[in-house]
């Protein structure tokens, strides 16, 4: 009796504790967080309002997230190979990653930028830079795929890139690391003698139609050997100009941490690209021999072409007066951002507590009145006082980068004080500040660097995560935070972890992209030379073995994939030493029915083939045997049955080349 009484009591206590726990945990979510949850919750089956594109930093890719939910939707492979879908491994995509240094499987992506029309993101493409081996990629937003990559010659540390002009006339690139141009093995300590920088303008072909050969290097401006850091191009009145921050105007080559932080002011380089066009038209550019690669996907075949270029047009400021000016800016500035109206230029004076805002109008006046404080290699230095609109006093510690909302306010990220500060760039008055967790790098407002910000949200991209998520060992994700900027005061809404290390980002209303996104590739339009569009065609083409005079043999296997089999799925007659190419065409035309292909012992990856697409995986069998291949994507109820075998025989074996499916069998003559 007693025992039962105790049991009852214990149960009662548990019940009360349980209910209490429920009540308590609900109460724990304060009103503030309940409001935030309502603002960021996207119910099942509904879509986010914005696409956000966050660079992946050292993962070399772009992460596509939905806002306001912060959900990761997709990683678009750009400069790094992606075994998940075969990007950079398939025969079709390999060439995208070709450079003058050969095939490069990795890079560091920093600054994505959407294509623009009249200074407003238009949702056609997004560009992104490779920092390490200088390149710029273009991603088509009808496919969310990298379709073009151009290498930048005479460059190192392609950091102030890939910023576009207001109508995407150009996409820009510049050197964070100065180098000898052309390259030569100078003693490093003779830095001042050999160090040169370049500002590169890449012409973009904006014509309609499905072609991917759109980028070409128009010219490179040869500039003094500083470290050029970030950029943005003008719009409205400042259209025709692009601005590049620089640090290390001390020209240190060692211990830059100290040696490049000595001067009170470094420079923003203002480049008048319309003036450059005039000089080039007058024949003032010089052709220079160099080597770089231009790679792009042929939309008809889906195969990347790789073209080697050997010449670039170089312009020097001395030969083209008026093409460039230096705007003194404190101190080792990072970001340079132009207000939506195009009137003010804000330098993120990283090591200064005061944020300088330059006036474009004053800059033009100072140029007209020749208010110069000196000149470096043909580039006049404008007087700081002549161009300064105002300084935002005591902005914060470590101001890095600024974006704008639709009401004319500016928001600057502050790395050291770990906060975002809101101010009015016209009056230089601080309005609000909000702490972020922890150590923000860039921030981003949808359209916030364009002529038309959609000023509803701001995301802070933070470098340090520490305790924000469940711990995952010493290596932690980076962290983003969503902030509501629709009101007078900024409000924290949401934390979400990010892939790689997002540096900069872009976002655009989903309605500008969604209607153009493809669901499948049209099989009918597939002009891949190794495509087989029906099972009959696959059985007819089957397997082809070609040997050269040295006895080296290539085997081409033509396969279709459809729910739930490959045609053919039994292959015999392949020999050790052969190089085998599996050309797999996904002959589905249904939305979201990819098929994968993997073969035992492949040293590359699997390939993930979209409906209507043909991809090729190379395989070099090492030993005789019977090897399975299978579909890697759970395509259907009988996905597990979607498999086949290939028989590999010794080099000298007398096995006929045959292929079959069910009771259909064919052999090579």
């Amino acid at each position, binding site marked *: 009796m007693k025992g039962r009484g105790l049991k009852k009591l214990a149960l009662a206590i548990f019940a009360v504790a349980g209910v209490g726990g429920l009540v308590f945990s609900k109460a724990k979510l304060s009103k503030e967080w309940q409001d935030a949850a309502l603002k960021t919750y996207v119910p099942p089956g509904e879509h986010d309002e914005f696409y956000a594109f966050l660079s992946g930093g050292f993962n070399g890719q772009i992460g596509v997230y939905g806002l306001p939910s912060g959900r990761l939707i997709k990683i678009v492979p750009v400069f790094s190979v992606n075994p998940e879908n075969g990007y950079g491994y398939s025969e079709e995509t390999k060439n995208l990653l070709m450079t003058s240094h050969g095939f490069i499987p990795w890079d560091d992506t920093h600054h994505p930028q959407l294509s623009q029309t009249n200074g407003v993101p238009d949702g056609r493409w997004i560009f992104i830079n490779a920092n390490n081996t200088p390149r710029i990629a273009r991603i088509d937003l009808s496919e969310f795929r990298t379709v073009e990559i151009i290498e930048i010659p005479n460059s190192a540390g392609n950091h102030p890139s890939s910023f576009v002009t207001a109508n995407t006339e150009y996409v820009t690139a510049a050197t964070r690391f100065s180098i000898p141009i052309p390259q030569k093995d100078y003693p490093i300590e003779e830095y001042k003698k050999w160090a040169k920088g370049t500002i590169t303008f890449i012409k973009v072909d904006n014509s309609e139609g499905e072609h991917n050969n759109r980028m070409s290097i128009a010219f490179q401006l040869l500039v003094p050997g500083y470290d050029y850091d970030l950029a943005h191009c003008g719009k409205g009145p400042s259209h025709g100009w692009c601005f590049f921050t620089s640090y290390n105007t001390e020209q240190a080559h060692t211990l830059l941490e100290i040696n490049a932080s000595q001067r009170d002011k470094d420079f923003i380089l203002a480049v008048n690209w319309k003036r450059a066009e005039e000089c080039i038209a007058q024949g003032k550019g010089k052709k220079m021999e160099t080597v770089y690669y231009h790679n792009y996907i042929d939309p008809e075949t889906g195969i990347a072409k790789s073209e080697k270029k050997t010449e670039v047009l170089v312009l020097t400021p001395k030969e083209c007066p008026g093409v460039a000016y230096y705007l003194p800016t404190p101190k080792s500035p990072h970001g340079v951002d132009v207000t939506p109206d195009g009137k003010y230029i804000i330098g993120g004076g990283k090591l200064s507590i005061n944020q300088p805002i330059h006036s474009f109008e004053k800059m033009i006046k100072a140029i007209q009145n020749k208010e110069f404080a000196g000149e470096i290699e043909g580039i006049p230095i404008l007087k700081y006082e002549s161009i300064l609109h105002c300084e935002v006093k005591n902005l914060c510690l470590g101001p890095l980068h600024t974006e704008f909302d639709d009401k004319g306010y500016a928001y600057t990220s502050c790395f050291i004080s770990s906060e975002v500060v809101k101010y009015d760039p016209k009056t230089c008055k601080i309005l609000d500040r909000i702490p972020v967790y922890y150590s923000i790098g860039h921030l981003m407002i949808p359209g916030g660097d364009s002529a038309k910000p959609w000023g509803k949200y701001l995301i802070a991209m933070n470098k340090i995560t520490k305790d924000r998520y469940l711990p995952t060992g010493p290596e932690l994700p980076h962290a983003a935070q969503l902030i509501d900027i629709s009101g007078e005061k900024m409000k924290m809404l949401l934390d979400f972890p990010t892939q790689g290390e997002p540096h900069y980002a872009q976002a655009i209303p989903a309605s500008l992209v969604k209607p153009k996104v493809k669901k499948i590739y049209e099989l009918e339009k597939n002009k891949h030379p190794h495509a087989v569009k029906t099972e009959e065609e696959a059985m007819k083409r089957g397997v082809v073995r070609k040997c050269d005079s040295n006895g080296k043999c290539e085997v081409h296997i033509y396969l279709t994939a459809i729910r739930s089999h490959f045609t053919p799925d039994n292959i015999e007659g392949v020999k050790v030493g052969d190089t085998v190419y599996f050309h797999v065409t996904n002959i589905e*035309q*249904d939305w979201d029915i990819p098929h994968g292909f993997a073969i035992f012992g492949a040293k590359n990856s699997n390939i993930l083939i979209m409906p209507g697409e043909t991809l090729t995986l190379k395989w070099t069998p090492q030993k005789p045997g019977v090897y399975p291949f299978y579909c890697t994507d759970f395509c259907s*109820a009988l996905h597990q049955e979607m498999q086949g075998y290939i028989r590999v025989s010794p080099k000298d074996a007398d096995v006929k080349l045959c292929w079959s499916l069910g009771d259909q069998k064919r052999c090579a003559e």
Partner: protein
Amino acid sequence: MGDKLRPFQRLLIALASLLLLGVYFFPLWYIKLWAPQYPEWLGMFIWVNTITGENPHDLYNINILNHYIGMQEINPDIVPELKILPFIFAFFIIFGLIVAITGKKKLLKIWVWSFIIFGVLAIADFWWWEYRYGHNLDPRAPIKIPGGAYQPPLLGCKQLLNFKACSFPARGAYFAVASLILGFTAYIMDFFKKPEGRLT
């Protein structure tokens, strides 16, 4: 008066004939399929002379799905009715116009009754095709439900495994029905006509 149609009746039967032209421009029947993984629906139109997908690849995709349960491929080229149907409608158009021109009551009666018989037969034939698609299943199909049959509905919606199949007449059929109503109206007007000479 005897066996001649009144001008209004002739106008009606002429209109009825011309309305039938609609069947050449619009599908007769519409079959839709929904499943959890097909929130966008798959759709199929039955025309006077062919079967098409609502979206470019719908028919292809329906056939891919059908192969799991062993349904035979839906291939408009092997349906003889689709070769004959255009001529049957052409017959009713021409015949109807002849009725209008000649104004013969007897011909109108033939037109109306033959059209009704044709309509019943066409629907029965459609049902027969559906029956065969739903029951003649490949014995080697990977998915076999004992006693399972997948006959789509003639009218309305029906659950077939994971798919909800809905079947409705489409615009072409409405043209045909409207045509029949006009023709039938012309035909029955004779029964309701006022006795002549009543006013005298």
